[in-house]
Every structure is written in C-alpha cells, then in structure tokens.
C-alpha cells in the first residue's frame, strides 16, 4: 500500500535575485515498509522535497503546486496547527547535520523526553522510560541518558538523532544525509542500524543522500534528481544495473567501488545549472551526450517507460540499448 504519494509537487524559493525553481513537477510514491532513496548532486533539490513534505520550508520557500498525500490525506492544504499532529507522529526527519544541532547545555535524554512530552500527552516518568528504551534500541548505553552532547562521538550523536526521530512511533522517517560526515566504520554501523530498525518497526524510510553507494546498500527504490527535476525513478536493482536516463547512467559511472573490476571513471562535463534560469526543455540537455534538437525545445514528460519505472527523457526508447553498454560515448 502506498503510504506517501507526491504528485506534481513544485516548490520554489522567492529571493531577491529571482525565483529559484528548486523542485519542479516531482511525483513519486513510497509504499509501506519501503526504503526510498532520493539521490542527486548538491543543490538539485533533494532537501527541498523533504522539507516540503514536512512543511518546514524556510520563509522564502513556497509549495506552488502539487499534492502530498499521506494515507490519502493531503498535507499541502493543512494548516500549521494541523501539521503538529503529523510531524514526528506520522513523519519524522533526521535533519542533515542535526547531530551537531543538539542543545549543548541540556542533556540528551531531556531533549528527547521534551520532544515526546510536547507531542504526546504523557507524564514525565513515562517519557523518560521511553527514552531509555529508545537508547537501547539505537545501541546506546541507557546509563548515558543524562550525558551531554559533547560527551558523545559523532556516530553516537547520530544515534541520538535517530532515537529522537523514532520517539513518537512514526510511520515514515526521512533521513537527510544521515551518514555523510561520519567515518567509514561508524557509517557502516549507522547503515546497519537504519536497516535493522526499518525491519523491526515496519517503517517506511526516505533516504536523501548524494552518495549512491549508501542508497545501494539501504534502499529498494531510487529516485534520481537533477536540477530540481526527477529524472528517473525505479527499483534499486534495475536502476543500478540498467539505467534508462543518460544522467543516471553518467552519475553511476562516476562512482568508484572497492569491488569488481577497476575501470576509468567517467564524469559529466560542465556544471549543474543555475535554478533561477534553468535551461529550456530538458534541464540536462546542455550536459547530455545524447542531446538532439528536441531536447532544448520541449520538456520531456515523466512517463512510465517500463512497469514501475518512470523516466523523463525524449529518447528513452531509442537509448535503451545504448545506455546498457556503459561508458559510451
């Protein structure tokens, strides 16, 4: 069953220099117990999509169209007070770099308990015992419940953030770059923890990261964003094995790996566009090796190219075999 359904979502930022089209016509769904990964380079709009779902956009940002349905209930039209019953209780989020945003003068247990008490009508004692359980759940020593943030390492603080996200039994957890600033071994442990918790609580997870390898480890479905647009969305195995969008193929081709044969990695010439004046037609056309006349003229539709697989490219059928062959041209 689909838990979250996003349809034609556009979120823009209105700043002095103009309108930043950070996310445009984004559509995807997350089923129950599914781990959905949203990937793309910095500035492509991944976090904007997440903040739109949480309705925590900064003042300059506005959802200008589209629907966000959680259990068939539209979040876009919800008022701020109504969102209070959704945030943390139904959808929670581990923010990017949040492990460095814990209040340094309040012990971590207190910070989690406070979040629970604000959201749920329970006594202080009950809240604290829940915090204790959460600590055990994320692999922290419950004896350290009253320690302060500086007494924990980066990996442990990230565990605290995950505990906080789980505090009110949400159904969907959005994790924005949860392992980015961590060392490899700690990163591995957090990845395992996320997988384990997802299974244990039948959670749906939306993982946002620029690192395709992390997505490959955790997610069963992947969306690839470029310059505010969703370019391709498919199940993880299919997407990594035979990408159908030129951008997906190029992005995967740029990733080094410690297994398999070593090949010269390819890269995408040029730089991502300015989202105030994005390129006409397909936003990827100036950097696409397969671009033809149509590409700068009309915007490709985001269509179902195969069952369960959506691609926004004019030449999705023509390129099918070309992209399969790998690094050409």
């Amino acid at each position, binding site marked *: 069953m689909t838990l979250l359904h996003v349809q034609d979502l556009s979120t823009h930022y209105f700043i002095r220099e103009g309108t930043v089209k950070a996310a445009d016509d984004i559509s995807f769904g997350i089923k129950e117990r599914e781990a959905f990964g949203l990937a793309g380079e910095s500035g492509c709009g991944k976090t904007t999509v997440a903040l739109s779902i949480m309705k925590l956009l900064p003042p300059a940002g506005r959802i200008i169209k589209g629907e966000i349905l959680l259990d068939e209930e539209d979040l876009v039209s919800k008022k701020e007070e109504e969102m209070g019953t959704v945030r943390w209780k139904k959808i929670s989020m581990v923010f990017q770099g949040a492990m460095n945003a814990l209040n340094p003068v309040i012990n971590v247990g207190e910070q989690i308990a406070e979040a629970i008490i604000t959201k749920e009508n329970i006594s202080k004692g009950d809240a604290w015992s829940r915090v204790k359980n959460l600590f055990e759940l994320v692999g922290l020593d419950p004896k350290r419940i009253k320690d302060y943030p500086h007494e924990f390492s980066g990996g442990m603080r990230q565990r605290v953030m995950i505990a906080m996200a789980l505090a009110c039994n949400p159904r969907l957890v959005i994790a924005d770059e949860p392992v980015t600033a961590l060392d*490899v071994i700690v990163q*591995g442990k957090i990845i*395992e923890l996320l997988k384990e918790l997802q299974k244990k609580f039948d959670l749906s997870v939306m993982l946002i990261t620029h690192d395709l*390898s992390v997505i*490959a480890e955790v997610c069963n479905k992947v969306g690839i964003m470029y310059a505010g647009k969703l370019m391709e969305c498919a199940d993880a195995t299919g997407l990594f094995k035979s990408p159908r969008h030129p951008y997906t193929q190029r992005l995967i081709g*740029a990733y080094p790996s*410690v*297994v398999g044969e*070593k090949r010269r990695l390819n*890269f995408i010439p040029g730089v991502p566009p300015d989202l105030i004046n994005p390129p006409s037609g397909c936003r990827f056309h100036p950097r696409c090796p397969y671009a033809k006349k149509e590409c700068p003229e009309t915007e490709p539709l985001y269509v179902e190219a195969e069952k369960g697989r959506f691609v926004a490219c004019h030449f999705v059928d023509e390129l099918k075999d070309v992209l399969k062959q790998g690094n050409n041209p």
Partner: protein
Amino acid sequence: MTSNTIIKVRNLRKWFPIRKGLLSAFFGKEEYVHAVDGVTFDIIKGEVLCLVGESGCGKTTTGKTIIRLIEPTSGEIYFEEQNVVALGKDEIRKLRCEMQIIFQDPYESLDPRMSIYDTLAEPLIVNKIVSTRDEEEARVFDALEDVRLVPPEQFAMRFPHELSGGQRQRVAIARALILQPKFMVADEPVSMLDASIRTEISNLLTDLRDKYNLTYLYITHDIAQARYIGSRIMVMYLGKIAETGPIENVVMNPLHPYTKALISNVPVPDPTVKRERMSILGETPTPINVPPGCRFHPRCPCTKPICSENEPKLKEVKRDRYVACHSVA
C-alpha cells in the same frame, strides 16, 4: 636509499602539547596528542601513494610535516638527498618550489580578494622565477590550460567567488603546479566535491602526473576513490601505519584486521552485491591516551595476550606487503 626514492621518512613523530590550566601546568605531567607516532616509509618517484585512515588518525599531520608546514617533534625526512628537517627558513622556501600541497577546501584555500591571475602569479614573483611580465603571463596561462580552465584569458581575470567548487580546486592545483614541483601532497582534494566533479578532478590529477612525471602523496578517507587514483596504499590508525602495499592487492585482500574492517564497511554502489560487514568494537580512542601494545587491540576481533604488551612492528609478510600485526605472519 635507492635512486628512485623521492621521499624518505624515518621514525617521524609529531606530538602536540595540550594546553592546560595553570595549576596542572605546575603539578601535572605534560600531556600530548600523539598525532603521528613513529612512522617510517618511502615514496617512490612517479607513484601515487594513498594515505588513508579515519579522521584523527594523523594522515594530514603526516602530509603537512613532510613539507614542513608543521615542525616534526622528532624523526627524519629526506627529499631526494636533502634532509628536510635540518633546513633553515630560506632553504625551505627554495625546497617548496619542488614540494607543493593542495588543500581540502577550495573555498578556504584561495584568497577571495585576489584575482585568479594574481593568485597564480604570486608564487612566481615571491620565488623570483620570472623576470618579465610576458614570461609571467605565459606561465600563468599555461598553468590554467594545464588544469583545463580554458580560455585562460577569461579565467585569469575572475575572482574565486565567480567559480564553482570544482573550478576553484583546479585553480588550487594550478597554483601548486606553477612552480613545476616534483612532489605534491594532495590533502583530500576532492572530498568537498560532488561525485561527478570528484572524478573529473582525480582524472585531471592522474593526467598531470603522467604529463609532468609527478609524485603524489594522496591523503583521503575514501578507499574506493583511492583505488582509482593510487598505486600504493598506506593505512594509518592512531598515528601509526597499520598496513601498506600495492593498492589493488590490499583492497582485494586486506591483511591487517583494521584494514579488513575499513574495506568491508565501504558502501558499494551496486545493490546486487551483498557483503558481510566486519563490525569492530567501540570507536577510535583519542590519541592522547594511546592503548599500550598494539593500538588497535582493544577493538580488534583477533586480539591475543601479546597484543596488549608488545607493539607489533611493520614487517614484510608477503612480497611488497607490510603489516603491523602479531596475528599476521
């Protein structure tokens, strides 16, 4: 020393004293951060030696000490036949024409008020390399072309804020290259950049090495990336070398338990690859109170009684493979 060794490091130590309060300064004993604690290695002409390890393991300190941006506490460093440690200020400046460094953060390593031209011309002027303005211009433009910032006339007049992260890093590379060094320390030169740009820059570094017969000490936390650029790898843990060897060999068949753990935890960008993560206990201790014996023993899955007593020496266990572990023979 064989004639093709360019850098020779013997028993290099760098301890940073910890600043303390007045009372403990009188009564307490002096405490140190053992950032680099006795490392010995050679760098061969033309090779790319990748120095990897987690944050705080001393890799950056090692790199900076070799070119004497940091004064060593003890030990010897030779560049070709010259003893780098014994050199005076003027001689060091001369030597820096031959040894250069590229820093991690291209947003901080360039002076925002200097045009790209001035940034690149400065080392030429300071070291009195050029005598005429024409010569200077030719050298600057050549350097820009080398890092593919073309046309150079256009880039020379820009300021850092007008460039993207990848372009800034190219400027930093050009600045290091303009003195025609023989040896370069590259300290995480791509870790702040997106995957595609990362590949672009590391391919560029490889091409430049071939063109100018350069030698790199390439410092990175990313083993997957190291595998693509390096010829040899050196793994550090808490200020000591754990393992060195030809990179492909080490990545495919790590011998030291720490290297094994590191490599098994690197996420792989392919969902069909299922690997066993090797989990190790706890987290890296601080380099202030280093565990006795083998520094890795409190976390090591195959620890023996001897490990907490004797510090293992780095010894050759197979051809070209050096490991510091009592369990590996």
